[in-house]
């Protein structure tokens, strides 16, 4: 225990500025292992941020189409537009999977009318977000064992934060708009020395802007 703690050069109190904290599960789907993404979705359930608490879901069913709902299946739903604008500009836009995607910028941001979680981690687990009669659903299946992750800016998705999280991969997952499944399936990808699925639950996340250089 002492040996690996020393190896990690970790300190108990992070001196950086906390940005936000909450849950941030995602599903990235493809038709083939070496193909481009066919459907992307992420969900945010934020307990603390500079813009307060809130929830948001982003679905890019046409990630390579620079257009939004209703022309393309690219849309966002949130109950806190200020929070979502911050998450999109300072975090999501820097994730490698979303970086440079005009579809994200063109996706309309719609007001949330309802949201809920269904199922449990031993079977199928779903996050559902609605804007009136428009229903977005993310479902994770075949969920693996949890593991805790801590990364600095060198390994963090944004390349600029410290990040703590609890990850669980899902070997199968679906994204649906009004019960219409979007194309693609989950594949595996390298993840900090492991092969894990491109569909994952990420709970208990805290993002911190480090102090100093």
């Amino acid at each position, binding site marked *: 225990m002492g040996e690996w703690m020393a190896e990690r050069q970790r300190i108990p109190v992070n001196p950086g500025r906390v940005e936000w*904290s909450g849950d941030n599960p995602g599903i990235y789907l493809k038709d083939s292992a070496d193909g481009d993404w066919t459907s992307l979705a992420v969900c945010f359930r934020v307990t603390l941020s500079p813009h307060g608490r809130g929830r948001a879901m982003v679905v890019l069913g046409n990630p390579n189409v620079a257009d939004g709902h209703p022309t393309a299946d690219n849309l966002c739903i949130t109950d806190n537009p200020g929070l979502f604008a911050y998450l999109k500009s300072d975090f999501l836009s820097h994730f490698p999977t979303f970086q440079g995607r005009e579809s994200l910028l063109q996706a309309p941001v719609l007001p949330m009318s309802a949201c809920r979680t269904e199922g449990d981690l031993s079977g199928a687990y779903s996050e559902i977000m609605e804007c009136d009669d428009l229903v977005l659903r993310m479902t994770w299946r075949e969920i693996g064992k949890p593991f*805790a992750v801590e990364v600095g800016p060198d390994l963090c998705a944004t390349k600029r934060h410290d990040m703590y999280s609890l990850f669980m991969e899902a070997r199968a997952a679906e994204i649906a708009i009004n019960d219409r499944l979007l194309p693609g399936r989950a594949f595996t990808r390298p993840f900090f020395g492991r092969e894990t699925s491109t569909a994952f639950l990420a709970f208990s996340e805290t993002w911190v802007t480090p102090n100093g250089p």
Partner: protein
Amino acid sequence: MPILPAINPGPVDWSGENPGILLKEDPDGPFSAMALFFRINYSPAGQGQALLLYEDPHKAAGPPTLQNAFYTDNVALAEHLRDTFIAKLAAFAEAPAFQGLQIAPLDRVETIGDPRDRYAEVVRAGDTQIELLWEDLGEPVALELPPSLTGPKDREMYTLLVESRRASISINGRKLKGEPAPRVQAGIETTTAFLYFAETWMWAQ
């Protein structure tokens, strides 16, 4: 500074939110009322919510005499937390109220406010409404504590701490006696009223 390995080798015990309020009538005296709330997104016993409440920590009595009880919407989760976690937190486990602690059903939880300013968890259990209120909140701090700096001493923890300098526990609108007291955690001067978010416990390797 790179942090390696990125994946903690310790098996995860549970993860979620774990805010609490421990009150004293005299800063040098014993706790007069105690509450610990759990919103769990992962545990071996599933997800759920639970509130450990000691209306009077010094009495081994439960409802209806006293609201010394562990309210939950997942009994298996409450049993897991009681046996493997709370039993190792000296302040809670050594109190007479822990003896014969009743597990009682929880009907509903409502979260109110913003952890930057004023924040509350309101728990409804039958005819009883319990409000935990945190005010005068501090800046959030991310912590990563080795076992030696945690209550149970047998696992590591990642968490986000927001301290509260004014807090209360109310039962059906009746405020319990006491105020938060000073305490030190990982070298930080803080209080016995706290929000802990994004908290993950890993068994020590």
